[in-house]
């Protein structure tokens, strides 16, 4: 306890998907993300709570099945428990899977950590016909046991009172001793004695626990042992090797397996004689299992998965169409208003072309993004996404990835609308560094929430009658490409064996309306915030790159001469009338025609000048420098500029295109949504749009993702590799689509 602040450190530990984060949110009032799939918490989160005048600092640890060093979650949880030494650990166990959940409890007790057992989801256990005698369990464990239902808050107060009581208990919590059988126990005792005698890491770890870790060949503990006392560490390793050889000869097994068997045996004994009673109801298939028989069926499962995905896109595109149109109209009116109150000049250009046509294009898709997030939140909260991972495991292994890679893909935008940054971070659950890196490099191929509005805009422009179908197709293309590239990477630069995958399928849950709204709003708000900050800033910078340095005086003079030539050809009476945008009412019919022709000629000169200015701008020059190459896949210099901006954030592709197709266009053209402007542009075609979409889907990840890859892989080379490699792949695929389409006579 810290006397200064009277603050007690309390950790929440438990298996994945046992309701840990829900309980954490219920206690602290936080809104940490909760998903109905295992492994949502990869790192620890903190919150505070006051009880009986004590301030509890609660830390939500990643969900783990054990305290080995197999995955990042286990290491994060274990390091925290060992080094931070929390005053109390609330060990949340799923009451309906008590035997499996108690495996972690036993390990916590072996570490000598004071625990309070939260018997969570007790209602679900009861509904399955499982009755638990919490008092007897508490007596046998010699630890406090409190039944809870985290979702409703049932038992929360009891739990916190108990935690406060245990925190103030001066008892010296000793590690429990479990017998590991005649082969291991004598060696374990000997090793424990040696460790005690040498004070070998006993400042943080119980001696018996260290000995167990030497027998389990725990890499982290072995390395620390080598650093602390290499001679003793070698002796302990030699003893562990002897046991291993003996067990292999006599039982064809390993210490790790024997240790696990005895722990489960200890748990079985603990739960015998009425601690857990099952009624007939428990023997029946649970509803979840019955539903899974259909949803994860080898034949029907994938079909249902595809249908659900298709339905999500139908729902999203169909219901967002009208609100998107409203927002587009709103931004158009705003642009007209700015043009009416500001005289022509750079500020007006910045506001209309840079901000309203640029950022407005991104903001216009808020309804679509919102509905997509709602659909994803629903699938996630029901537990269906975990089934998707389960069904795709075999496919992923074929392509050299791991079952856990599926969740990283989904988080990155496997169902359009994710984000590659948390997707890359989700690879921490992978144990093999090569599988992890392969997942990290391919997850950005998914259609993240930033690419979604770009695709939606291009689909609305060129495939208006098939919007859900095209989006569905694009999702399939992104998965296929990611898997093919993963296979290529695993066969070349990241060769290595596959590791086994074990995924817990959480029970299906009916999401709460409030929960869905909170998830949807949080993500939509993030999108709006991003549009209003970094997207706005970079849009303004790209506007500047497209507006400056402007045309040299000599070229301006040439355009002025063209204007004068048009005016010179008119009778004196008409010259003034032509300067006005609308013809005077009293103009005779023949003069009216002359007026219209002159006006058209002047507009053409204005547009040519604006286009020349754009081409001469910094951005224009960069875009045109790449045009020789990009023409192979149908990309013109304007699109090149937009794609360049997309490296900062993919949404910027819309805003930059909006700006590029706003500058140098007549006012009536600027008032139309970007999709309509592109659809009517002779430089664009459905084939070109498809090539652009494929390029955007596959090219370099955004800057945030690249820095995340660097951070997670620990090397800049992988960040740079993903940028260069993905762009080459994108270019080649876009060329195949564009040139293939032209060859087939599709157009372009």
């Amino acid at each position: 306890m810290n006397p200064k602040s009277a603050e007690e450190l309390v950790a929440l530990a438990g298996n994945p998907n046992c309701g840990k984060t829900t309980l954490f949110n219920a206690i602290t009032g936080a809104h940490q993300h909760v998903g109905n799939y295992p492994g949502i918490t990869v790192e620890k989160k903190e919150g505070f709570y006051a009880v009986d005048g004590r301030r509890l600092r609660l830390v939500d640890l990643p969900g783990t099945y054990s305290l080995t060093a197999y995955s990042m979650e286990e290491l994060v949880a274990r390091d925290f428990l060992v080094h931070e030494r929390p005053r109390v650990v609330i060990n949340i166990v799923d009451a309906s899977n008590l035997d499996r959940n108690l495996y972690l409890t036993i390990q916590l007790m072996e570490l000598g950590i004071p625990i309070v057992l939260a018997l969570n989801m007790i209602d679900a256990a009861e509904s399955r016909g499982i009755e638990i005698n919490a008092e007897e369990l508490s007596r046998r464990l010699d630890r406090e046991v409190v039944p809870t239902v985290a979702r409703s808050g049932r038992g929360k107060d009891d739990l916190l009172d108990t935690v406060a009581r245990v925190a103030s208990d001066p008892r010296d919590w000793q590690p429990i001793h479990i017998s590991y059988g005649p082969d291991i126990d004598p060696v374990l005792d000997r090793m424990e004695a040696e460790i005690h005698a040498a004070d070998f890491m006993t400042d943080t770890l119980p001696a018996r626990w260290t000995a167990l870790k030497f027998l389990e060949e725990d890499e982290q503990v072995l390395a620390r042992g080598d650093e602390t006392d290499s001679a003793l560490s070698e002796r302990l390793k030699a003893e562990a090797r002897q046991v291993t050889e003996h067990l292999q000869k006599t039982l064809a097994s390993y210490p790790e397996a024997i240790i696990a068997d005895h722990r489960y045996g200890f748990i079985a004994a603990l739960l015998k004689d009425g601690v857990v009673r099952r009624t007939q109801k428990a023997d029946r298939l649970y509803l979840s299992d019955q539903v899974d028989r259909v949803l994860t069926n080898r034949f029907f499962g994938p079909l249902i998965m595809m249908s659900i995905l298709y339905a999500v896109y139908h729902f999203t595109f169909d219901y967002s169409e009208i609100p998107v149109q409203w927002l587009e109209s709103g931004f158009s009116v705003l642009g007209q208003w700015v043009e009416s109150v500001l005289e022509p000049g750079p500020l007006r250009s910045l506001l209309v072309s840079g901000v309203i046509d640029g950022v407005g294009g991104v903001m216009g898709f808020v309804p679509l993004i919102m509905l997509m997030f709602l659909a994803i939140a629903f699938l996630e909260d029901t537990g269906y996404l975990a089934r998707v991972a389960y069904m795709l495991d075999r496919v992923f292994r074929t392509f050299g990835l791991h079952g856990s890679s599926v969740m990283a893909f989904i988080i990155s935008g496997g169902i359009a609308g994710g984000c590659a940054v948390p997707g890359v971070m989700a690879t921490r659950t992978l144990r093999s560094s090569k599988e992890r890196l392969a997942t990290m490099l391919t997850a950005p191929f998914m259609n993240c929430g930033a690419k979604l509005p770009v695709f939606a805009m291009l689909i609305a422009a060129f495939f208006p009658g098939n919007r859900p179908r095209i989006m569905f197709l694009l999702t399939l293309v992104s998965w296929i490409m990611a898997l093919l590239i993963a296979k290529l990477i695993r066969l070349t630069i990241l060769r290595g064996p596959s590791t086994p995958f074990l995924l817990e399928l959480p029970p299906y849950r009916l999401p709460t309306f409030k929960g869905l709204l909170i998830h949807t709003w949080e993500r939509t708000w993030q999108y709006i915030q991003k549009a209003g900050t970094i997207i706005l800033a970079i849009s303004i910078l790209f506007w500047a790159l497209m507006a400056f340095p402007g045309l040299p005086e000599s070229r301006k003079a040439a355009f002025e001469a063209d204007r004068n030539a048009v005016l010179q050809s008119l009778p004196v009476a008409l010259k003034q009338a032509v300067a006005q945008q609308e013809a005077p009412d009293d103009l005779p019919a023949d003069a009216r025609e002359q007026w219209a022709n002159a006006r058209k000629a002047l507009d053409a000169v204005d547009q040519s000048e604006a286009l020349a200015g754009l081409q001469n701008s910094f951005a224009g020059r960069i875009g045109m420098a790449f045009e020789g190459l990009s023409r192979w896949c149908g990309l013109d210099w304007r699109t090149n500029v937009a794609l360049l901006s997309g490296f900062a954030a993919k949404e910027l592709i819309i805003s930059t295109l909006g700006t590029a197709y706003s500058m140098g266009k007549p006012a009536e053209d600027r008032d139309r949504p970007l999709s309509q402007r592109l659809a009517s542009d002779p430089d664009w075609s459905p084939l070109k749009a498809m090539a652009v979409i494929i390029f955007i889907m596959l090219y370099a990840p955004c800057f945030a993702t690249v820095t995340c890859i660097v951070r997670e892989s620990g090397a800049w080379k992988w960040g740079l590799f993903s940028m260069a490699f993905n762009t080459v792949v994108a270019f080649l695929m876009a060329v195949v689509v564009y040139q293939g389409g032209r060859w087939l006579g599709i157009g372009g």
Partner: protein
Amino acid sequence: MWQTVVVFLILAVVVVYAARQVVRMVRSKTPTCSGCIGCSAFEEAPPSQERCEGR
């Protein structure tokens, strides 16, 4: 003329803001993208503890 002055002031602010964002993104130990799904689950993540090695 006044429009040009205002535009250059805005550009100065934006350049500083964007530069700060880039520096923050590169230096930060936490993900700085205000992404979409899942981000809230990965806030304040510690730096990766292992290096990934290729062949």
